[in-house]
């Protein structure tokens, strides 16, 4: 039993790292919308739908450690990755704006915020979903061995 050993197992650490990334990103997203009052566009909302539950189910998977959490978490993470990828392409202009599904309300293509003058919010989302998907896939591979 992994959780019985005094020092946390490698698997636990991987899952914990994934949870930290997701939680930091979720809080960051809430900071943008609730503190900075930047209204989330519709594609941002779809990414939140994938992001927020991850922060909860990964935590449940940590105590006690349950590797099968990957089965539920990975589809969420990959779904978020796909939307974030699309959103990023849209924002940097690789997909023409006319193809954007959101024309009313908040624009999905206009960058409201740029970290260090470069990283837009969808890019940050893409980075986090990439890291978390990678960690979860690593966990899946090493536990199936």
């Amino acid at each position, binding site marked *: 039993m992994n959780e019985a050993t005094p020092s946390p197992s490698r698997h636990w650490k991987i899952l914990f790292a994934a949870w930290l990334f997701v939680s930091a990103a979720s809080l960051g997203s809430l900071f943008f919308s609730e*503190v900075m009052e930047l209204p989330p566009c519709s594609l941002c909302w779809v990414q939140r739908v994938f992001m927020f539950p991850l922060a909860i189910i990964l935590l449940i998977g*940590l105590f006690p450690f349950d590797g099968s959490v990957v089965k539920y978490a990975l589809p969420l993470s990959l779904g978020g990755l796909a939307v974030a990828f699309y959103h990023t392409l849209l924002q940097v202009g690789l997909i023409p704006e006319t193809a954007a599904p959101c024309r009313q309300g908040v624009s999905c293509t206009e960058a409201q915020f740029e970290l260090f003058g470069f990283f837009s919010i969808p890019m940050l989302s893409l980075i986090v979903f990439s890291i978390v998907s990678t960690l979860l896939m690593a966990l899946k591979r090493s536990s199936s061995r």
Partner: protein
Amino acid sequence: MKTQHIALLGGGLLVLVFVIATSLYNDQREVEMGEAASRPSSPLERDYAQSLGPADAKVVLVEFFDPACETCRVFYGHVKTLLAENPDKVRLVLRYAPFHHGADQMALMLEAARKQGKYWEALEVMYQTQPQWASHHRPQPEKVWAFLAAGGVNVDTLRRDMKNPDLMAIVNQDIADAKTLGVSKTPQFFVNGKPLMSFGYRQLKAMLDAEVAAQY
């Protein structure tokens, strides 16, 4: 280290960073809004703006409002109470920040009513009937006309005056000033140039009372 402790530490740190960042951000915003409002050529007050109270009052309460905003409606009663509590000491200046889609028409309507000397009557009618013409955040000007007519406003003249470019210029200037000052929500209050950051009736009353006590 036990896993529970590691997770508590990690989660706690994240929350701590969030709380500190929020506090820093809000402080920064307050400073910026205050600076924009206290510059010599401040766009906070305009000579044309509708005001209530003595011209020589030492405390000026500026309210950026949206006629279609529910909270502004509620606060209108509160503001009247505050003015009544401080007679001859506080002047209220009303500025438009019509953030609801189509609410700039209501602001124009108020300016047109003002030409008839019916500004406050029109404002009260608008607030009283707001649930009927502004439901689901979609203001419907045509519904307001009927209510205003019942309130003693000449609607034919009003509708003609609403096309007056001078009145449109007033509303547009207010919208531009709201943007310059960083007003993003309504109602946004400024007490002698200081923005009310922590929103609420008690906070507004405390800020106003403190300023009255300092000035008189």
